[in-house]
């Protein structure tokens, strides 16, 4: 069975057809994380591989959410890691608290959510505080995106690239100089609340929302901005509103991803969210196929694996990776999936039309 056949088989009949679909989603939501956790706890999956899986999952969330802006909206955002950092720090402070004193003083005031109940299951520590903090982190990132989007989208053109780049740098600098969150040392000693179940849930949510959005009229309006801003505006579509929506939704999931990363590695510092990380996500989406949800997720997987596989090269990894990217782009202009793979979620072309096509009804 070729990959294409497989894709057709997995392709869902869309939510208009009830129960079978719900079963598929329930299975997809529950089984993979349980399998991974079981393998991890039984020692078959060692902690290195588990760590790679976690980073891969978080990269998928970031890449797929960045694709809403760079792929579907057609604007160029370079500051995705900045939104990620906002989510991570907000969640971090809410749970682990900040340092109200001076640099070097380790006295911490407890986080607002630190008193919420925790329990242990499957060898993991779960806390009610974590999903709440994660959501608040995502909302904070989305709100910041909305605020910087207002001036960035005032005029037509590529201002978003400049504004998001500046935003990313400003966020990092603010964090470095903010003693309350530990300055350049960052926040340490975060509890390890993040695990593969949360990551998997977040992946499902990101992919599902992204796909639902893009196969709806509102997503279609986002696509129309990419296709022809002038025609969209003169056709009665409030272009600026849709730009703000796309940027905010993308930032929301970036914030979630940041929180997941912070509570996985159990510390956060400003350099984890600098422009270079943003560029990593850009590479992932252009490698996999910008505009395609499947493609960008695939790009995240491949890039993460490649970074690990090339680890023996040391610093040269930073050279070989980009060269491979350039070769890929030369051979397949639209990335590895060529924007063609009719995969689970939404084909790059067509969007809703694919879902509503008579063959799929």
């Amino acid at each position, binding site marked *: 069975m070729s990959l294409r056949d497989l894709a057709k088989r997995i392709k869902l009949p869309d*939510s*208009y057809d009830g129960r079978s679909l719900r079963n598929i989603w329930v299975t997809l939501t529950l089984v993979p994380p349980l399998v991974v956790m079981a393998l991890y706890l039984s020692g078959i999956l060692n902690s290195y591989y588990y760590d790679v899986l976690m980073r891969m999952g978080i990269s998928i969330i970031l890449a797929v959410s960045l694709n809403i802006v760079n792929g579907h909206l057609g604007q160029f955002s370079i500051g995705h890691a900045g939104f990620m950092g906002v989510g991570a720090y907000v969640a971090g402070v809410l749970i682990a608290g900040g340092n109200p004193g001076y640099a070097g003083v380790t006295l911490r005031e407890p986080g607002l959510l630190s008193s919420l109940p925790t329990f242990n299951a499957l060898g993991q520590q779960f806390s009610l505080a974590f999903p709440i903090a994660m959501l608040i982190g995502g909302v904070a990132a989305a709100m910041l995106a909305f605020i910087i989007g207002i001036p960035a989208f005032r005029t037509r053109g590529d201002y978003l690239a400049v504004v998001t780049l500046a935003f990313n740098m400003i966020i990092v600098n603010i964090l470095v100089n903010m003693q309350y969150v530990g300055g350049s040392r960052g926040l340490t000693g975060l509890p390890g609340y993040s695990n593969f179940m949360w990551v998997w849930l977040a992946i499902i949510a990101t992919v599902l*929302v992204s796909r*639902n*959005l893009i*196969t*709806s*009229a*509102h*997503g*279609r*309006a986002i*696509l*129309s901005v*990419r*296709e*022809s801003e*002038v*025609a*969209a*505006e*003169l*056709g*009665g*579509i*409030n*272009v600026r509103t849709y730009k703000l*929506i796309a940027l905010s*939704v993308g930032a929301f999931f970036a914030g979630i991803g940041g929180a997941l990363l912070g509570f996985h590695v159990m510390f956060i510092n400003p350099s984890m969210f600098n422009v270079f990380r943003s560029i990593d996500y850009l590479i992932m989406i252009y490698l996999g196929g910008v505009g395609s949800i499947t493609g960008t997720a695939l790009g995240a997987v491949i890039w993460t694996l490649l970074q690990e596989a090339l680890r023996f090269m040391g610093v040269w990894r930073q050279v070989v990776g980009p060269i491979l990217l350039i070769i890929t782009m030369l051979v397949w202009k639209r990335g590895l999936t060529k924007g063609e793979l009719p995969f689970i979620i939404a084909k790059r*072309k*067509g*969007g*809703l*039309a694919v879902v*509503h*096509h008579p063959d799929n009804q």
Partner: protein
Amino acid sequence: MSTILTISKLTHDFGGLRAVSDFDLHIEEGQLIGLIGPNGAGKTTVFNLITGVYRPSSGDIRFDGTSLVGLPSHTIAQMGVARTFQTIRLYGDLPVIDNVNLGQHFQVQYGLTSAMLHLSSCSRGEGELYRKAMELLELFGLAQQAYEDAKSLPYGQQRRLEICRALASNPKLLLLDEPAAGMNPGEVQELMDHIVWVHDHFKLTILLIEHQMRVVMGICPHIIAMDFGQVIARGTPEEIQKSPRVIEAYLGTEETEAA
């Protein structure tokens, strides 16, 4: 019949260049008016002023009794002014039917949350949109190509799709910017018949820009001729054809011919 569009003393400057100067226009409901003039006469600028792309330097544009000056383009479109473009501007990578759906986008009933969670209001709303879009595509003979990318259509069909998309917004006034540009005489004739059909079938008010005079002569009972941003003649096709200023604008005076 009531007045649908009133333009009075409309003037627009691009830096030192006066593109439109003291332009007046009254359109009654149901009229099919041709706006002709040589290249650079300011015809498209008038369209851009009506649709809010530019803000006029002075003058007023009233649509259905409301002034359009200063309103954003999407609001003007939502009020019922639809337009097409001189160079085709379709959503090329989207299927034909989505192009039409985007034309009726502001009539979408369900909200963003419903869209992101695909609630039942979303699928109901989409079903309704698709049904309407399909009806329109059938009227325009494009139903067969509904799921093809817009950019893959032949030129003539792309023109028709653009008009179809404009009509999907259920406009009161349709502005067509040189719909015959780049077409051969046979295609032009077909398109003009089509425009007359659209005008009758949808009981629309249409303002049509064209720089080839003969194209509009056959279908517009009332024509306005422009040159250098000013109206140089108004009247029936016969009156326009006889107007010395129109002849001068199109052919030049004898002295300039000789020179």
